[in-house]
């Protein structure tokens, strides 16, 4: 009896060892919230599931890790216990000081952070950052929204007035106005990334004011999409495909496609490339063209004309003939942002410090 048991234990240990040996590379993913929230964390977790299909790779995930020293502990565990050689701490607030601190202790491990915070003059060489131009997908969703709205009023529920959020709001309006010059976007800032009661309250208030297409930039759009469906208005999604939550009213949505990004990184590391040697670039960005972002399949309420315009814009963004932020462009206080003939290309740093809302957006950036 005793023998059988120890034999069994030995066999289990052996098979684990073999499995660990067969998987050459270990990758760690850290999320700030639950990984099936129909939001940002789910998009990251889908990216992890995507690269787990690579036979030579083993991925470990840890969800709901707060932006505190707990994140450092998780990173160390992944390196020491799982032997991770590549780590993706996905939340914005993990970067400073948590990633910077752990990265200094483990110079052989590659740390890649989602955002655009890397600065070669200040940060360790084994740290890099990547981000997607999701405003391109939001622009296309705005076109569909502009086509579908009857009242001409679109609603945008946003967490905080930071550049990434403002850029999406502006892209949504510019997309809508490209097909419906009278469209406006009404913004409600909830003040935080995940406040479900306030998000539901914001959706209800906007719908009460005649808004008939809603979208958002919060951690989890689930409550907003469900509220829109219950009140019988349309919605365009964010982060991941939310069509299941609103089978009638879901038009399309801006989605992340991290699988592509993570596969590229994993293959580079497998090939022996490193950030420190400069064989992996420290800053990686991409939009529709690079496959970093995509749009959800169109819902049943999207007209043929809307689909045609949306596809045309998508093609234009991919080949570079369409620029989202181009003059003449005024902000909603009347100040000129860009004169006619000038434009901000996607790589332009001015877009990453955006502090304005374009004319047609009803909302304030000051709080």
């Amino acid at each position, binding site marked *: 009896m005793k023998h059988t048991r120890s034999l069994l234990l030995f066999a289990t240990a052996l098979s684990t060892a073999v499995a660990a040996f067969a998987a050459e590379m270990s990758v760690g993913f850290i999320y700030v919230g639950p990984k099936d929230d129909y939001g940002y964390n789910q998009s990251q977790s889908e990216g992890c599931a995507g690269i787990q299909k690579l036979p030579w790779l083993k991925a470990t995930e840890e969800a709901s890790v707060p932006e505190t020293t707990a994140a450092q502990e998780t990173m160390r565990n992944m390196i020491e216990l799982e032997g991770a050689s590549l780590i993706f701490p996905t939340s914005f607030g993990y970067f400073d000081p948590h990633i910077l601190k752990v990265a200094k202790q483990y110079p052989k491990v590659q740390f890649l952070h989602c955002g655009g915070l890397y600065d070669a003059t200040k940060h360790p060489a084994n740290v890099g950052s990547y981000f997607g131009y999701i405003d391109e997908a939001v622009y296309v969703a705005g076109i569909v929204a502009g086509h579908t709205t009857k009242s001409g009023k679109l609603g945008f529920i946003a967490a905080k007035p930071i550049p990434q959020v403002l850029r999406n709001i502006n892209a949504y309006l510019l997309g809508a106005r490209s097909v419906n010059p009278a469209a406006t976007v009404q913004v409600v800032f909830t003040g935080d990334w995940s406040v479900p009661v306030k998000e539901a309250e914001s959706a209800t208030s906007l719908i009460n*004011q005649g808004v008939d297409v809603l979208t958002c930039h919060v951690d989890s759009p689930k409550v907003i999409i469900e509220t829109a469906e219950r009140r019988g208005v349309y919605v365009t999604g964010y982060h991941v495909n939310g069509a299941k939550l609103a089978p009638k009213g879901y038009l399309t949505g801006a989605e992340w496609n991290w699988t592509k990004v993570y596969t590229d990184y994993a293959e580079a590391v497998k090939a022996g490339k490193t950030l420190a040697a400069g064989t992996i670039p420290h800053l990686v960005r991409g939009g529709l063209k690079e496959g970093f972002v995509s749009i959800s399949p169109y819902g049943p309420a999207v007209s043929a004309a809307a689909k045609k315009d949306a596809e045309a814009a998508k093609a234009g963004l991919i080949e570079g003939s369409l620029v989202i932020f181009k003059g003449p462009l005024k902000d909603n206080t009347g100040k000129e942002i860009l004169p006619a003939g000038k434009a901000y290309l996607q790589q332009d740093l001015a877009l990453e410090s955006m502090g304005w809302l374009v004319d047609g957006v009803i909302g304030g950036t000051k709080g």
Partner: protein
Amino acid sequence: MNASESIGWWGVVLGIFAGALRGGTPFLLVSLGECLTEKSGKINLGLEGTLLMGAMSAYAVSYHSGNPWLGVIAAFGTGAGLGAIHALLVSRPKVNDVAAGIAMLIFGSGLAFYLGKSYIRPSAPQLPALSLGGWSELPQLQAALKLSPLFVLGAGLAFLLSWAFNCTRWGLRVRAVGDAPVAALALGMSVKKVRFVAIVLGSAIAGLGGAHLSLFYPGAWTEAISSGQGLMAVALVIFARWRPVHCLYASMIFGGTQAIAPALQAIGITSGYYLWNAAPYVLTLVVMVITCSPKRTLAGSPGALGTSS
């Protein structure tokens, strides 16, 4: 689909009114539960955890059984269970009820997050609404007058508790135990038993508040669903001076303040939203500052509250 006509400033009024009904319900049920508990002379700070466990269990049971009412019963039962643990803890000599309550808060929320992981994604059947707006042609008003059955239950419970505390043997016993446990003991009452029942029942009522959050409004299970409402409801009991009917009014004020910031922004008032977003918390602080005094106990405060007896 239904593009509503814009209703301008009426939207703010309607938003606050509807927010009072929808957003006030968790405050109402938690504060009634806390009121009952405190009337017996003990405090339960763990109701935030009870609220989360109630929300999670209601959502999970509704999802698996397909019947949201079973979810409501589950929330009530989970609340009672957590209440029983707290009641057993504080019935021991030298156990501080404030400290035990904080431990229960951490335990309840941690357990809810742990058990609730797999229920974040699925959509559970929701409680049916009581629609009182059929007479109006405004879709906004119809939507605002879709009452939560748990709000109706809570409002009824507020009057029932008020009557019970004043006119029934059972209610007077709870008050006697809360005001003067030594005297109650001398009269032959079992202080421990009465407190046990009051804490368990109070926690069960608070659990119902969780069912409202996950099965009615906003109608989803996420870890951020309660965002401190269970704690604010404890402050609200003090504001309401331990009177159940006042808990109803106070909850509606708190629920209404949550709706101010979104409603103002929706009509284009774009400045000051951080301030308005903080309104419920500011209100809590103001209530605490006004009602707090080192020199006297509050009128209406149960005599044994905060003492070791």
